[in-house]
């Protein structure tokens, strides 16, 4: 039976644009030896190829502002993912980072350069003779261990305490304390962020946390990693969000009001993947991403109607707020007190900018930031009903970690 095209629709016309034609080039390459047992780590092989490619291109490695590392997952720590590569190569700042494998990694890199997210990408693809590919490999303790702990997270939380902060809120708790120490502030900034998001959540019928809290309630919430409380942490839930993205030209023919991507940036800093090696408060990936964004955006921080700082932990939201330039580093606490809307018990920045109007991760539930994108899009469409911000035309979404997957995106109604 011929089943080809069984879902086809003759009314659908496909475009095949090629705006990147002849606009992107390969300028360097590097290769390692090939061998059945080179007795080296995946990272070591990747670094050798990277160093050779940089030399072949004749560029300074600090010209690299994008990295596509090796792996099937966005994080893929413990191998030759972008975090490990950037840290190990001492590359200071990237505005685009990603992992990929097989043929897609090269295409991702071309996309990134063409889009303007970065100018010079290092692509590194490593392979090890895997234990499932060779019976001899399955007897090699190094390969066995790499296959056992090679996935995201690796051996975090197992034998070696020194790896416990590989990916966790525990280092964030320590960073929160260090922030208060270095800037001589209280914990109020974090508490007010939690109160604001919970107030919004209480007005969102889809939110998991429908009860608003006070600042006293914040301080009374259970201590998990001192000084971080359970109210500092987003609420784990089951959920999903999805988006359809197309060209502006195509969007104009569709029934929904388009929301445009005005500018965006990713961010990677040279710290790599170990949290205890955190750079200064204003050097981490959030700052790289926001600086990359403002360098590309005509819309400025004072033009924003909506602001969605990632609230996986309140520490993230404070960092995004300060990195975005709403206030100076360390001043979020005082700034939030000056920006407080007492009638609704929420933040309202610069006298106009509404913050995380659905409650975000702290109030609505943990969506890894995707519910910040969806709320921003609905607000800009003007379809949010009772919580619609009148005339909302611009939004900043800032999501990610101090080290991995930070993004800064300005959306607008055009």
């Amino acid at each position, binding site marked *: 039976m011929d089943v080809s095209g069984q879902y086809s629709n003759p009314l659908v016309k496909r475009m095949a644009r090629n705006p990147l034609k002849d606009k992107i080039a390969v300028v360097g390459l590097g290769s390692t030896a090939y061998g059945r047992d080179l007795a080296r780590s995946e990272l070591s092989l990747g670094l050798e190829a990277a160093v050779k490619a940089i030399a072949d291109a004749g560029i300074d490695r600090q010209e690299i502002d994008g990295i596509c590392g090796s792996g099937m997952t966005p994080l893929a720590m413990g191998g030759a993912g972008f975090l490990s590569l950037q840290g190990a190569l001492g590359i200071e700042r990237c505005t685009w980072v990603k992992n990929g494998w097989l043929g897609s990694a090269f295409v991702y890199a071309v996309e990134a350069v063409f889009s303007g997210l970065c100018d010079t990408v290092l692509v590194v693809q490593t392979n090890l003779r895997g234990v499932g590919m060779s019976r001899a490999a399955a007897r090699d303790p190094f390969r066995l*261990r790499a296959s056992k702990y090679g996935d995201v997270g690796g051996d975090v939380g197992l034998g070696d305490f020194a790896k416990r902060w590989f990916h966790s809120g525990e280092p964030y708790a320590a960073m929160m*304390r260090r922030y208060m120490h270095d800037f001589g502030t209280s914990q109020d900034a974090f508490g007010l962020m939690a109160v604001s998001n919970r107030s919004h959540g209480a007005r969102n019928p889809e939110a998991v946390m429908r009860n608003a809290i006070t600042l006293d309630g914040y301080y009374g919430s259970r201590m998990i990693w001192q000084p971080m409380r359970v109210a500092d942490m987003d609420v784990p839930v089951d959920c999903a969000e999805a988006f359809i993205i197309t060209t502006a030209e195509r969007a104009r023919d569709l029934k929904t009001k388009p929301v445009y991507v005005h500018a965006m940036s990713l961010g990677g800093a040279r710290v790599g993947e170990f949290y205890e090696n955190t750079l200064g408060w204003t050097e981490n990936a959030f700052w790289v991403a926001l600086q990359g964004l403002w360098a590309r955006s005509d819309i400025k921080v004072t033009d924003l109607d909506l602001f969605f700082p990632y609230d996986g932990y309140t520490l993230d939201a404070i960092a995004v707020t300060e990195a975005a330039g709403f206030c100076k580093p360390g001043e979020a606490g005082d700034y939030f007190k000056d920006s407080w809307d007492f009638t609704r018990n929420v933040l309202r920045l610069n006298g106009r900018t509404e913050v995380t109007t659905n409650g975000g991760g702290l109030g609505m539930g943990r969506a890894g930031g995707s519910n910040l994108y969806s709320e921003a899009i609905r607000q800009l469409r003007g379809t949010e009903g009772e919580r619609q911000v009148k005339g909302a035309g611009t939004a900043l979404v800032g999501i990610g970690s101090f080290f991995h997957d930070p993004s800064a995106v300005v959306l607008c109604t055009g």
Partner: protein
Amino acid sequence: MSNTAASDDEVFKYFHDVKIDHDNIAHYRGLMAKKLLINRCDDCGNWIYPHRPLCPKCLSWNVIPTPVSGKGRLYMYTLIMQSRDPDMPLTEPIQAAAIELAEQPGLRYLSRVVNCPVEVLAHDMPVALTWIEENGRFWPVFQPTGKAHG
């Protein structure tokens, strides 16, 4: 532990729950002998952590696992009040701390602070390396060096 260095197989067996690789096995072999080894560039002198084979400062591959003095300062810390495993509640908070090693600014090692009351913990306090035994294995931890805490 005998004076002869452990074989690769012995390191894998001892650290059965750690991702041992070609870049970090020397560090773990060191831990078995109660030595804290951190990679150092033999060309430019830069200390490198985590365990990587390339110097991020000068791109030299001449990287040597080297003992550290064990002196440092408490850069940042948290008290872990709650275990992630619901069946293994903590009896007391874990004093988890990033120790900035004396060898180089920004060179930090995640560890625990022992022999130190919680109210004494403070940013930048001087600490020194010591070792604790846990389930038959020795691990590097740090304790205050101030006179009051001997």
